[in-house]
C-alpha cells in the first residue's frame, strides 16, 4: 500500500470556530480505487473535515494535496476543479426541473441538453444507476434523488467522492444497491470517502477505516484486519458493550388498544388500513417497516395529531376501563388525565423549537399550567437543569438555543422532556436516527428505564438489529397494513425483512 501515490492527502489540518477547535491537526490519506470509511461520534469533526474538502470552510492551518500537488480550496468551485465531489445528506436539487437540467445546472459552456442526456445515460450504464435523464425531480423517490446527486458529481468529472451518511435515507434494499454501485465506481478507479454511523456498513463496504475523536485523528485500520468492537472502542475512546439489554417485562397489562385503525393523508391516499394491536405496560412494542409504511401516521393518530377515518384507539386505565382517544386533540388527551408522551421523528421541526433555549423548550409541555396569564419560567428552568444533569446533556448552559446542540444532545433534551411528565404511554419514532453509538446506547437505556417503570412503549425503528435486540414484540408494517406481530426473543431478522415487503407475511395483502 505504501508505494501507491495518494490521490488525496490532508496534512495537519486544523479548523477553529472562535475558540472551539473542530479539527485539530488532522492528517488523512486517500488512495485511488479505495473506499475509506470515516468514523467518529457526533461532533468529532467528520463533517467539518469534509466541508473543508468541498470548499465550504477554509482551514486555519494545514495543507491539502491532490495527486501530490499542494492545493488551496477556497470555494466549492475550487473543489469541483480538483475533481472532488460531495454528496450531502440534504439533496440540493431543483424539484421542477428534469434530471438532466439539474445535472448541467451551473456548468459553463454551451448548453446541449441532448448531448448531456446521452452522457448521463452512458454514466448510468457504466456504473449501474437506474435513472431516466428526462424525468422530473419531483417524480423521483429519495433513493433516486440520491442517485442523481451521485451522477451529478460523476458527470462533472469527479474522481474523489465524499458521501455524508448516504444510507440514512435509504431502505436496506436500496442501501445494498448503492453499495454495489460504489463498488463499481471503486473498480473504475474512483476514490470514495463515506461517512456512516452504521458499523455493519463500515465492515461491509470499506477498504480502510479512519477514526476521528473529538476533532483529532486517532488511527486507521484496514477493514479486513479489524472488528466492529475494536472500531467502536477506538471511536468512543474506551471499551463499550455492543449488547442491548432486554429486561423481562414486569406485570404487563393492556394499556393501548387499537383496532381497525384507518388513516388517509391529505391527498386521500390510505396511509394506514385496518391496523389492530395492543400495547402493554412495561413492554416495548417495536414497529418495523420500510420508511413511509405508515409509521408516522400511526404514532400521530394515537397522539391526536392525525385525523382518523375510522377505527378504535382506546386507552386502558389501571382498573381496566377503556377510554377512547379517538378524535381528541393533544390538549384534550392531557385533560383526560392520560399521560401520553411522543418523541417525533422530526426533532427540531416538531418536537422542539430550535431557536428557543432548553428552558423554553421544556415549557412547551407545561406552559398552560396554572390560571395566571403569565408563564411560569422557574419550573421549566429547573426541569432543564435536571435533564442536563441526569442525561448528561453537553450544553454551555440551559439558555443555549437547542439548534446549537449536537444531534445526540438535542434528542436527550427531547426525550428528557417527554419522560419528565411520568408518562404511561411513550411513543418514539426513530429515536436514535443520526445518533452515534454512545448517544444511541444512552437512549436505549433511558427507554429501558421507562419500561422498568411500567410505561407502555411504542418504538418505531429502522435498524432491524436494534429492534430484534431491544423490543419484546415487533409489529411489522407493510404499506400501511400489519403484516404480522412477532416475539422479539425468537424473531429472525430475515423473516422480518420479508414481512416488511409482504413476502411470507402472516396476512394476505
Amino acid at each position, binding site marked *: 500500500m505504501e508505494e501507491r501515490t495518494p490521490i488525496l492527502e490532508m496534512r495537519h489540518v486544523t479548523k477553529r470556530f472562535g475558540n*472551539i*477547535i473542530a479539527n485539530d491537526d488532522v492528517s488523512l490519506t486517500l488512495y485511488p480505487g479505495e473506499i475509506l470509511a470515516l468514523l467518529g461520534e457526533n461532533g468529532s469533526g467528520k463533517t467539518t473535515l469534509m*466541508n473543508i474538502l468541498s470548499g465550504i470552510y477554509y482551514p486555519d492551518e494545514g495543507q491539502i494535496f491532490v495527486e501530490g500537488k499542494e492545493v488551496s480550496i477556497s470555494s466549492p468551485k475550487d473543489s469541483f476543479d480538483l475533481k472532488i465531489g460531495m454528496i450531502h445528506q440534504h439533496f440540493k436539487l431543483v424539484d421542477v426541473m428534469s434530471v438532466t437540467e439539474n445535472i448541467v445546472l451551473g456548468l459553463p459552456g454551451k448548453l446541449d441538453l441532448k448531448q448531456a442526456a446521452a452522457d448521463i445515460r452512458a454514466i448510468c450504464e457504466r456504473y449501474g444507476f437506474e435513472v431516466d435523464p428526462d424525468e422530473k425531480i419531483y417524480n423521483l423517490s429519495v433513493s433516486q434523488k440520491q442517485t442523481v446527486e451521485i451522477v451529478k458529481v460523476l458527470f462533472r468529472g469527479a474522481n474523489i467522492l465524499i458521501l455524508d451518511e448516504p444510507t440514512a435515507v435509504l431502505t436496506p434494499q436500496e442501501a445494498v444497491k448503492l453499495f454495489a454501485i460504489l463498488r463499481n465506481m471503486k473498480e473504475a478507479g474512483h476514490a470514495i470517502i463515506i461517512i456512516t454511523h452504521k458499523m455493519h456498513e463500515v465492515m461491509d463496504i470499506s477498504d480502510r477505516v479512519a477514526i476521528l475523536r*473529538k476533532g483529532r485523528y486517532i488511527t486507521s485500520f484496514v477493514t479486513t484486519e479489524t472488528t466492529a468492537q475494536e472500531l467502536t472502542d477506538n471511536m468512543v475512546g474506551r471499551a463499550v458493550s455492543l449488547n442491548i439489554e432486554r429486561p423481562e417485562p414486569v406485570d404487563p397489562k393492556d394499556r393501548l388498544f387499537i383496532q381497525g385503525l384507518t388513516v388517509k393523508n391529505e391527498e386521500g391516499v390510505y396511509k394506514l388500513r385496518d391496523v389492530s394491536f395492543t400495547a402493554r405496560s412495561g413492554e416495548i412494542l417495536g414497529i418495523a417497516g420500510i420508511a413511509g409504511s405508515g409509521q408516522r401516521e400511526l404514532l400521530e393518530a394515537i397522539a*391526536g395529531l392525525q385525523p382518523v377515518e375510522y377505527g378504535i384507539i382506546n386507552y386502558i386505565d389501571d382498573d381496566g376501563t377503556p377510554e377512547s382517544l379517538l378524535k381528541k386533540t393533544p390538549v384534550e388527551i392531557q385533560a383526560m388525565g392520560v399521560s401520553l408522551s411522543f418523541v417525533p421523528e422530526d426533532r427540531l421541526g416538531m418536537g422542539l*423549537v430550535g431557536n428557543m433555549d432548553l428552558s423554553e423548550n421544556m*415549557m412547551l409541555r407545561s406552559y398552560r399550567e396554572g390560571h395566571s396569564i*403569565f408563564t411560569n419560567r422557574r419550573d421549566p428552568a429547573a426541569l432543564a437543569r435536571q435533564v442536563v444533569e441526569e442525561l448528561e446533556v*453537553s450544553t454551555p448552559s440551559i439558555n443555549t438555543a437547542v439548534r446549537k446542540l449536537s444531534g445526540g444532545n438535542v434528542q436527550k433534551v427531547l426525550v428528557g422532556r417527554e419522560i419528565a411528565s411520568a408518562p404511561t404511554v411513550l411513543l418514539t419514532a426513530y429515536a436514535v436516527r443520526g445518533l452515534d453509538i454512545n448517544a444511541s446506547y444512552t437512549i436505549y437505556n433511558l427507554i429501558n428505564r421507562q419500561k422498568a417503570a411500567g410505561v407502555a412503549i411504542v418504538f418505531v425503528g429502522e435498524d432491524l438489529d436494534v429492534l430484534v435486540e431491544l423490543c419484546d414484540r415487533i409489529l411489522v408494517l407493510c404499506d400501511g397494513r400489519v403484516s404480522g406481530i412477532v416475539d422479539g426473543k425468537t424473531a429472525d431478522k430475515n423473516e422480518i425483512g420479508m414481512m416488511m415487503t409482504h413476502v411470507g407475511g402472516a396476512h394476505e395483502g
Partner: protein
Amino acid sequence: MKADAKKKEPLIHITRRKDVSLLRSIVIRAAAIVLALIVCALVTTFLTGENPIDVFGTILSGAFGTPRKMWVLGQEMAILLCVSLALAPAFKMKFWNLGGEGQILMGGLAAAACMILLGSKVESGAMPQWLLILIMVVASIGAGALWAFIPAFFKAKWGTNETLFTLMMNYVATQLVAYFVILWEVPKGAGKIGIINQSSEAGWLPVIGDYKYLLNIIVVLVLTVGMYVYLKYSKQGYELSVVGESERTANYVGINVKKVIIRTMLISGAICGVAGLLLVGGTDHTVTTTISAGRGFTAVMVAWLAKFNPLGMIFTTFLLVLLSRGANEISTVFSLNKSFGDILTGIILFFIIGSEFFINYQIHFRKSHKPEAAAAVPAEDPHKEALEQILRDAETAAQSVSKEETK
C-alpha cells in the same frame, strides 16, 4: 514541497461567529454609527461644500433646537413607535403584516366618523364628552382590528398569502377614506374635511396641562411596556413565538394555530387603530388619506432593526425620527434639496443594517505565510488536560456550526 509553499491562500474568508458577546455587538454597532457619520461628512463636503460639523449640528438642532421641536420629536416617535408595537407580535409570529397603513387609516376614519356624526350631540349637551371619546376609542380599535382580522382569517382558513392580502387592504382603506372625505367635506367642493368640531372640540382627546402631545406619548409608553411584558412573559406571547418558529411544533404541543394567528392579528390591528385614534383625535383633528404618512412601512424597519423587542424599538424609533427631522432641517437651513437629507439617512441606515453582518460573521485575512510551520511536528502540549476539556465543549458547538452551514 518547498515550491508548493507558494500556494494561493484566499485573501479573505468568512466564517460564522459562535456566540456573540453583548459587548462585542454593542462595540460593532457603535463603530458602524461612527463610520456612517464619517462617510456622511465626506459626502457632504464633496457634494455641497458645506462644513459637515455644521450639517450634523443642524440635524441635532432640527430635532432638539427648541422645546417645540423636542415635543414634535416626541410626538413623531410616539406614533411611529405605536405602529411598530402593533407590528411586533405579528412579525414575531412570522405573519408579515404590511397592512399597518390601512389599519391606521381605518382607526383614524372610525374616530373621525364618531366626531363628525356625534359631535352635534355633544354640542347640544345630549351626550357627555367622555362618552364620545369612549365610543371613539372602541370604534378605532374595532376598525383597526377588523382590517387586520380579514387577512388573518383568510390566512388561517385557507392559507392565503398575508403579505399581498394586507398590502391590498391598504388600498381599500385609502379609497374608503377618500370616499368619506368627499362625503363629509367642509365646505362643499373643498375636497377635504378640515378641522372637525373646531369650536366645540367635541371628541378631541384631552390635553394634559399645556402639552398637546403629552397624552400620546404617555399612551404609547404604557403600550410599549405592555407589549414588552406580553411578548416576553405572557402565555399568549409564548404561543405566538412558538407558532412563528414552527407551526408543526405548535400543533404537536396542542396549540391552536388558527386561533393564535387570528388573536395576534386582532391585537396588531387594534394597536394600529389606536395610532389612528391618536392622530385624528389627539393631534390632527381631521382625517386625510395621507394621515399615516407611510408609518405602516417605516415601522417595519423599526421593528426589524430592534429584532421585535419593544424596548429596543424605542431606540430605533428615535434614530429614524431624529434622522428624518434632521433631514428636513438641513434642507431648509442650507437650502439644499430635501433629497440630501434622505441621502444621509440612507448612508446611516446602510451602515447600521450592514453591521449585523459583522456581528454574525467573522472575516479572516490572509496571514503571512510561514514556510516551515506546516511541516513541523507539534510538540507535546503541556496543557493537554485543559485542551481536552476545551475539545469536549467544542464538539457540540462544532457540530451545530456545520449543521447550520449545510442548511
